[in-house]
Each structure stands twice: as C-alpha cells, then as structure tokens.
C-alpha cells in the first residue's frame, strides 16, 4: 500500500489519499453518531422509568398486616404501555426489602440505600447485576401513609444496546459503499482536472534541443496548471534564446576564424606559385605570422568567454579606488591617445572605492578607454568621470567625441562579434569581443554596463558597480 501512495499515477494517488482521509472522517462520524444515539436512548429510558415509578407510587398500598403490596390489576390491563420486563423493589430506609417484583429472572438490585437516595429528586444510575447484566436504575424516596420507603425501578440495558448495535451495523454496512462512491467521484474529477497535464506531458515529450520552438498548450490561463504551463513556456523561451545565441556565437566564431585563415592560406599559396627571392619569402612568412597573431588573440578571447560562460573564473576580490584603476589604465593606453593628440581628462570623486577583482575590472575599463581612443577623431577630448550615482552605486563613465552609436544599436554593441562598422573595426585590429568581455567583467561583479548618447554627439559608456558588494 505505501508504494501505491507514492506511485507515479497522480490521479490514483489523489484518490487513495482522499479515500483514506474520507474513511477516517467517516468512521469518526459513525462513532460520534452512535454515541449520541446511545445517550439519547439512555435518557429516554430513564425518562420512561421515572414515569413508571410515578405510576408505581400510586399503585402501592399497605395491607392490614403492615405488608406492602401493589395493585397488580393495573398491569393486567392490556392498554398499559408499561414495560413488563422491569424490576421493582421497595426498601425501607434501613435497607430491608419491603416489596419485590422481579421480572429480571430473580436478580436483585441489591445494596443498601445510598445516603439520601432519591430524596431530592430521582436518582439515576447504571448498575451491573450479579449475573453480569447491566441495568439502568431510578430510585425515589416516597412516603406511604407517613411511612418512608425507597422505590427502585430497573430496566435491562440489553434491548437498548441491541438498538444501538443495529444502528451502528447499518452505518458500518453503508460505509464501504459511500467510500467507494466518493473515491470514484474523486477519481473522475481528478482525471478531468488533470487531463490538461496529460496533453502537456505529451507535448513536452516532443520537445528536444532541435525543436525548442514547441510550446505547451495552456488550457486555462487562470488555473494552477495553466500557470505551470506558462512558467514552463517562459523557461522554454529562455532556453530557446540561449540556444540560438549559442548557435549564433558558434557560427560567428567560425566566420571570425575563417578570415585570418583565409589570409594565411592565400598568402602562402600565392607565394608558392612562383619562385621568389629569400627577402620576399621573409616578407610572406612575416605576413603569415601577423595573421597567426590575430588568430591567437581571437582564440584567447574566445577562451575567456567560454570560461566565463561556464562560470569557471574565480574572483580575487580586493578593495581599491576607481580613480586609481583609471589612472593605471591611462598609464597603459594613454600613449595611444597622445599619438592621436587626444586629451584624456579625469573628473569626479577620487575617494569612491569598490570591492572587485581588480584584474577583471581593469580589463573592462581598458577595453572601454581603448575603444574611446580608437573611435575618436584626432585632437578630441575623452572625459572619464567617477561619481557616486547613489548611496549604493558607483559610476564610471567614459565620454568620447566620436561618431556616437545609433540608438537601435546601443544594446547590440555588447553582443559578441557585433560591430557597428564591420570593415573598419577589423582594420583596427578588433576581435569584436572587447565590449562583450567588458560586459561580462562588469556583470560578474553584479554591476551594469551601458552606453548613451553624450551631449556633443559622441557616446558615453558607463559602468555601474555596487558599492557594498
């Protein structure tokens, strides 16, 4: 049974669980009903006994020799509803039996009178007789012609118990039928409620990496299953997006690798077509080595991205001032700006410090400053600003006076291999990965990176980092 409760069939499981809970409740219900019924019958019996006793009090008389007797004629009247299988005894206050009318096969109620028995009101009690039968006793204190006596009436409980047992029997007999019926209803209802699940499962079975565009059917968007289906569809959408991104990345990477490979091959093949001087061969080999350098850079960048994607890079956190990092970057690439007669100006707070992996963050800033220099005209100014964007966020922004980036491309430029101007960027030795590496470097620190149009028409790249990370 326990294994059934854990079985894979949800409908069956629901039905079994419901069936068990329902059975327990039903049995409890039967128990309570039976007890209430028993109590009610007992009260009725006592009530009957009291009436009986009152009648008896009227029928009792004292014979001339002082004995106590009863006018039996009354009971011989067929209209009397009095129970005949009852025990009646009359005691003197000292316990002496004055009269006994036993129809309980000779058993006596026994026992001396209790203190003040029946004096205030009718005394009710249940007693087990010497032969084991249980009787319900009512006793009452009575004066007959000024003579005190105690009257006791006892009814056998057996017929009452039999009644209760019949009642219980009927209920118990009906219980299995009720339970089976209820379980059948639950099974049917559950089957109907879960039928969308079956169709979802059938559809989900067809979904593979190649067919991620499939979606689960949403039968009723407002219910739980509809919600689950929508959540699952959202998950599929994200999976499909990242799969297609991966596919695009793989094909883009192949194309990017092809370009230097094509150059390598052409240079080599052309140089072997005719005989050349050794000086010319040197030139060919040098040119091929330059292409190899490009390939090496590309592969190194791809490796960084692959490693970042798989989350393999462990951050070496330290706390440092943003401005120090910027000065360090300017120390490296500043010479390129000087070469183009550009001026790099830094403004803002010197104090703003962040906790980050300095090497990785440096890469991001280096790429951004390098880009700003590359794409700005000679003699222009590059502005690097550090500020506290809010209490929690530091912002480093790099504003150039270059051509700017069209609004519709401002998010795409962080995509891998995305270039605003394909030919020109490659000419300048770009891999098309610089900004996507910068984006990763910032996001791995829970920061954000973006670009906006600057006032003078150039672009302004900004990096926002949490101050308390």
């Amino acid at each position, binding site marked *: 049974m326990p294994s059934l409760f854990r079985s894979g069939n949800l409908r069956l499981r629901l039905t079994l669980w419901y069936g068990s809970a329902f059975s327990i409740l039903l049995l409890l219900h039967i128990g309570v009903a039976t007890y209430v019924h028993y109590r009610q019958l007992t009260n009725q019996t006592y009530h009957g006994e009291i009436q009986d006793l009152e009648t008896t009090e009227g029928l009792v008389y004292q014979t001339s020799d002082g004995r106590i007797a009863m006018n039996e004629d009354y009971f011989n009247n067929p209209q009397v509803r009095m129970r005949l299988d009852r025990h009646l005894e009359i005691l003197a206050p000292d316990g002496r039996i004055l009269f006994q009318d036993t129809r309980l096969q000779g058993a006596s109620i026994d026992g001396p009178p209790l203190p003040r028995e029946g004096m205030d009101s009718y005394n009710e009690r249940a007693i087990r007789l010497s032969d084991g039968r249980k009787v319900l006793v009512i006793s009452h204190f009575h004066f007959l012609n000024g003579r005190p006596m105690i009257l006791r009436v006892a009814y056998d409980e057996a017929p009452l118990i039999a009644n209760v047992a019949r009642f219980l029997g009927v209920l118990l007999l009906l219980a299995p039928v009720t339970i089976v019926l209820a379980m059948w209803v639950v099974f049917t209802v559950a089957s109907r409620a879960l039928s969308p699940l079956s169709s979802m499962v059938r559809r989900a079975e067809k979904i593979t990496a190649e067919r991620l565009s499939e979606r689960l059917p949403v039968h009723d968007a407002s219910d739980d299953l509809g919600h689950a289906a929508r959540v699952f569809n959202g998950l599929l959408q994200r999976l499909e997006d990242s799969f297609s991104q991966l596919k695009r990345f793989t094909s883009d990477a192949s194309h990017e690798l092809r370009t230097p490979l094509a150059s390598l091959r052409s240079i080599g093949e052309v140089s072997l077509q005719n005989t050349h001087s050794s000086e010319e061969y040197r030139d060919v080999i*040098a*040119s*091929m*080595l330059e292409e190899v*350098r490009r390939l090496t850079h590309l592969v190194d960048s791809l490796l960084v991205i692959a490693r970042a994607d798989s989350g*393999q890079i462990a951050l070496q956190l330290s706390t440092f001032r943003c401005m120090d990092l910027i000065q360090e970057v300017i120390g490296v690439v500043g*010479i*390129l700006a000087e070469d183009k007669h550009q001026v790099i100006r830094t403004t803002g707070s010197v104090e703003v410090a962040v906790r980050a992996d300095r*090497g990785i963050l440096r890469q991001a800033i280096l790429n951004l400053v390098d880009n700003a220099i590359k794409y700005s005209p000679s003699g222009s100014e590059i502005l690097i600003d550090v500020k506290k964007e809010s209490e929690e966020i530091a912002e480093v922004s790099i504003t150039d006076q270059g051509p700017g980036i069209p609004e519709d491309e401002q998010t795409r430029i962080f995509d891998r291999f995305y270039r605003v101007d394909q030919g020109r960027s490659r000419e300048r*030795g770009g891999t098309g990965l610089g900004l996507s590496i910068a984006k990763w470097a910032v996001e791995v620190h829970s920061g954000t990176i973006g670009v906006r149009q600057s006032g003078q028409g150039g672009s302004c790249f900004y990096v926002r980092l949490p101050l308390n990370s």
Partner: protein
Amino acid sequence: MQILIVEDESKLAFALQQGLEEEGYAAAVVLSGEDAISWLERTTPDLVLLDVMLSKRNGLSVLREFRRDGFHAPVLLLTALDSVEDRVLGLDAGADDYLVKPFAFPELLARVRALLRRTATTPQSALDLANLHMNLTGRTVTRGGVTLELTSREFDLLEYLMLNRGRVVSREMLTRDVWKETMRYTSLDNVIDVQVARLRRKIDDPFEPKLLHTVRGIGFVLRED
C-alpha cells in the same frame, strides 16, 4: 647543452628542434611519454620540454615518473591549458616553468635560457651597446655622450631590450615583462608599437648606426649591424 623535446605533435617538435639547434643547443625529439622515459634511462639531458597533453599518456604523469626516478634537470611544460589550476597542477608535479601554446619562439628561447642559467645573474649597474649607455642605478641614458630624456616606461622597455640585446623579443614578452600584464587576452600590440616607435625616435633617429629593429611578424631586437 642537451635538450629533450617530448611532444607528440611532430611538426611542432621538429620545428622546435631546428630552432634550438640553430641557437646552438643539441636537441632530441621523442614523440611519446614512454619513449621519453626509455630515452632518459640512457641519457641525461640538461633540460626537458614536455607537452602536457600527450596522446597516450598525460605529460604530468610522465613528469611525476621522471621526478620519482631522481631526474633533477629543469622541466619546461608546454600546454594549451592556461587556467590557474592547470598551472598549479603542473608546478606541483615538479615542473620548473610553464609555457602556453601557441607561444612565440623567442619567448621559448628566453625561458630555456633562464632555466639553463646555472648561476643567478648579478644585477648590473650599467648596460652598453655601441655608443648607447644605460645607467641602471641613476636611470639615465646617453648616446654618444648626449643625454636622452626617456619616460619611465621607455626606460623599462629599453632596459628589457638591452638585457636581451642581440635577441628578438616578442610582443607577448614585452606585454608580460615590461607592462606586467598578467592576462593573456589583453592585447597591447598597438600600445607597444607606439611605445617602440617613440623610443626609436629618441635613441635612433638622430644617431647612427640604427640599433632598434622591428622583426616583422615576431617582435623587436636591439642590435648593432
């Protein structure tokens, strides 16, 4: 000086052999880890170049066996794996240095020289090439008696080229040793080219003979020719 090259990529192995022999070393090639171990039973080289990803047997297990057999000569690992863990694993196995493929040949030569150098180099206080004089303690440079004004970076660059005078240094070597850039994917090629051009303008343009030469496709060399 005898160098053993353990590399299963035969094209690379024989290219390295030729390059090292042209530099005056005796170089032998074995193409598998098993061959390397049997080779070492007969001969003791002064240095081993060991590929980590050998086809049959991992280079690191070969290296551990070398070291267990009491082989003390320096070992330079060649590998395509460049994560920090890989480096640590290699050094733990008993390697002396680590070079990530694809490497520039001048860089391999520099490492080989460094590993074979028995005595520690005494820090020099001055370097000379032709009439170029570098005072390392005072950080001044003169050529033909004329004092040259160099920036700090230019001085470091010239010092590195002077220490390697007569030998080609690659851009990777400059990136790592002069610019102290540890991340391999940081490309400073443009920066280096501009810096070298400036240095040349200061130390060569007004003087003869020209000392700083670009070796196209490889790097730069400081020599008198």
